[in-house]
């Protein structure tokens, strides 16, 4: 992005004029970096007007401490060598003697330790991304440039260990140096004139690369949730129906190792909770046998469902989306045939379609990078890894449910529910559920991480996380309710439940438990009808048959009149909840 493009973007009014405050924490003059960060934020969030706050020149450490006190959606921390020790900056005149270099190696670890403390405090307040160092320091060593100096290697080692610790223990994202290297070659990053005249060290190209990657790292797009793959000349090399089960390959000997890479990639997606399915025009018996080969790198139990038949792929995709109960825009379809890709895209216009470039290993490697961009996620939670199993079990449960009378079916589930009252806004699972769930969702309200933390600063608020398991397996944490108590009333401001938990009467148990625990005679729901919360509306229509309006109040007697028999074992854990009388 050129500077003029960035300024043009910022000149346009935001579509909803919502403010997006961001801390840009660096030790140099932010200059064009600030403009480019604001522009990339606008592209990422067109409804918002970015307000980029920065600190004082030459004081990264102080700027970090000050940033903690300011409310913001996130912080972008840009570190260069001059911030770790000023003598590593081109603006320094401290000299390059051996004594100076030795002293630098002593001071830098201490500086890193202090920065780590400030970063921990900042992370407790908001999401943080770190960039850098991205530009080199002056040629301090007596060695020729083709050789790494001891100082350079020691600093690299210190930084690598420090960044690894920051990333894993403090939960801060680090912009990938490799990704930055692809967009901004090391030799053309530093603008000596602008650094020495104005304190801004980056060329425009480099500033844009930093801004773009940093914004993507701090506010990554929603990862895709499902991948549907073709088999012949995609999952494996060869046409199964022509060469047989032993004839399809994915190894070095048959020059088909790129298919092994693809299978391993799919296996890693499955481990992170991505749903995988097959849509293949093939004989289903042959497919089942081929997927049972002992050398397969993605076991067939990680794939559900497997659509192997002679119908259209778009019809197969339709059936898969129904089983998964997710929308096409959360899914990617991979096939080696442009015709099949076009046929699917024609019917499912929002699905992501990617061409598998059979016979071109370099293009396959590039494809895997592209796919990682679409599916990459910062954290893999236990619920992510349960997802496929619980879908498979939900399908089995649905079959059984259709055979039995509803009450008998629910009783025989042998279900148990745990209500967790721990008020921990830093646990990302609750926030993730609220921001991802559409169907059983009280009002569609979304929260940023900062807004979520602020909500719980009021001592009258509560957070209820619901975990569930039955004889079909555990679903993990599948529902969240948050609200506040005042004047004898329980107010539910947010209530979501995963669609995997439908048909188990969990929602009735949640309400009964809320009435009993808070001792409130009435519960007020901040209900808003949305285009997608049909299942939630159907639930409320049981109690409000005359119609639903925004903001509903349900008294306990009316609830009990319509509540079916409930058979789950219920237990609770976590901090206590203030009752409505005491609030």
């Amino acid at each position: 992005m050129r500077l003029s493009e960035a300024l043009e973007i910022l000149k346009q009014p935001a579509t909803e004029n919502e403010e997006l405050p961001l801390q840009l924490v660096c030790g140099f003059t932010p200059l064009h970096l600030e403009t480019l960060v604001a522009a990339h934020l606008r592209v990422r969030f067109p409804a918002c007007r970015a307000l980029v706050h920065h600190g004082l020149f030459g004081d990264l450490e102080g700027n970090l401490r000050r940033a903690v006190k300011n409310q913001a959606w996130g912080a972008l921390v840009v570190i260069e060598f001059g911030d770790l020790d000023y003598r590593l900056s081109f603006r320094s005149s401290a000299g390059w003697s051996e004594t100076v270099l030795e002293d630098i190696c002593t001071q830098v670890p201490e500086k890193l330790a202090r920065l780590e403390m400030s970063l921990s405090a900042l992370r407790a307040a908001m999401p943080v991304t770190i960039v850098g160092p991205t530009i080199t320091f002056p040629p301090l060593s007596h060695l020729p440039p083709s050789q790494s100096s001891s100082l350079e290697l020691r600093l690299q080692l210190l930084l690598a260990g420090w960044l690894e610790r920051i990333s894993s223990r403090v939960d801060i994202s680090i912009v990938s140096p490799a990704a930055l290297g692809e967009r901004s070659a090391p030799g053309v990053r530093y603008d000596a004139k602008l650094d020495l005249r104005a304190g801004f060290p980056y060329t425009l190209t480099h500033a844009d690369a930093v801004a773009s990657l940093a914004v993507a790292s701090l506010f990554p797009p929603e990862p895709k949730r499902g991948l549907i793959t073709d088999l012949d000349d995609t999952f494996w090399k060869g046409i199964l129906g022509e060469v047989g089960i032993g004839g399809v390959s994915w190894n070095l000997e048959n020059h088909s190792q790129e298919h092994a890479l693809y299978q391993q990639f799919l296996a890693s997606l499955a481990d992170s909770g991505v749903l995988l399915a097959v849509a293949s025009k093939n004989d289903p018996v042959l497919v089942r046998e081929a997927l049972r080969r002992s050398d397969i790198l993605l076991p067939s139990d990680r794939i559900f469902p497997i659509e192997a038949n002679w119908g259209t792929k778009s019809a197969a995709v339709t059936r898969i989306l129904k089983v998964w109960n997710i929308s096409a825009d959360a899914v990617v379809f991979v096939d080696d045939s442009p015709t099949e890709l076009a046929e699917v895209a024609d019917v499912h216009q929002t699905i992501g379609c990617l061409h598998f470039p059979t016979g071109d290993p370099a293009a396959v490697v590039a494809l895997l990078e592209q796919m990682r961009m679409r599916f990459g996620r910062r954290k893999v939670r236990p619920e992510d890894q349960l997802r496929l199993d619980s879908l498979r079990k939900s399908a089995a449960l649905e079959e059984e449910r259709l055979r039995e009378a509803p009450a008998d079916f629910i009783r025989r589930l042998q279900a148990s529910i745990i209500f967790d009252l721990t008020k921990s806004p830093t646990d990302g699972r609750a926030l993730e559920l609220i921001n991802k769930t559409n169907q059983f969702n009280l009002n569609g309200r979304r929260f940023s991480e900062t807004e979520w933390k602020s909500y719980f600063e009021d001592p009258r608020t509560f957070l209820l996380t619901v975990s569930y398991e039955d004889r079909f397996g555990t679903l993990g944490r599948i529902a969240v309710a948050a609200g506040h108590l005042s004047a004898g009333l329980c107010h539910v401001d947010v209530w979501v439940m995963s669609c995997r938990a439908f048909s188990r009467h969990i929602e009735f148990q949640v309400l009964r438990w809320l009435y009993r625990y808070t001792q409130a005679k009435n519960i007020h729901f901040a209900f808003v009808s949305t285009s997608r919360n049909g299942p939630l509306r159907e639930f409320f229509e049981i109690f409000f048959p005359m119609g639903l309006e925004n903001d509903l109040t349900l008294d306990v007697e009316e609830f009990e009149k319509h509540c079916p028999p409930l058979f789950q074992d219920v237990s609770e854990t976590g901090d206590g909840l203030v009752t409505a009388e005491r609030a």
Partner: protein
Amino acid sequence: MKLTRCFSLAFPALPAESIPTASVQTVPEWDSIAQITLLTLIGEEFGLEVDFEEFGDAASFEALASRLRLRSSVA
């Protein structure tokens, strides 16, 4: 026109009719940082390597226009 566009981007609050008479004295936002932004935009718009020292004392629209005319006549 290109120079006018640069001014419009560097100083979005400046009315279009004020651009031809804009100077460091009449535009409060025109500080050293804005000067660098303006010169960078000029470099992009005109496809020039802008020497900040060469253009650094051009403190008005007219002065920058004159400097650019001189550059293009020399090129």
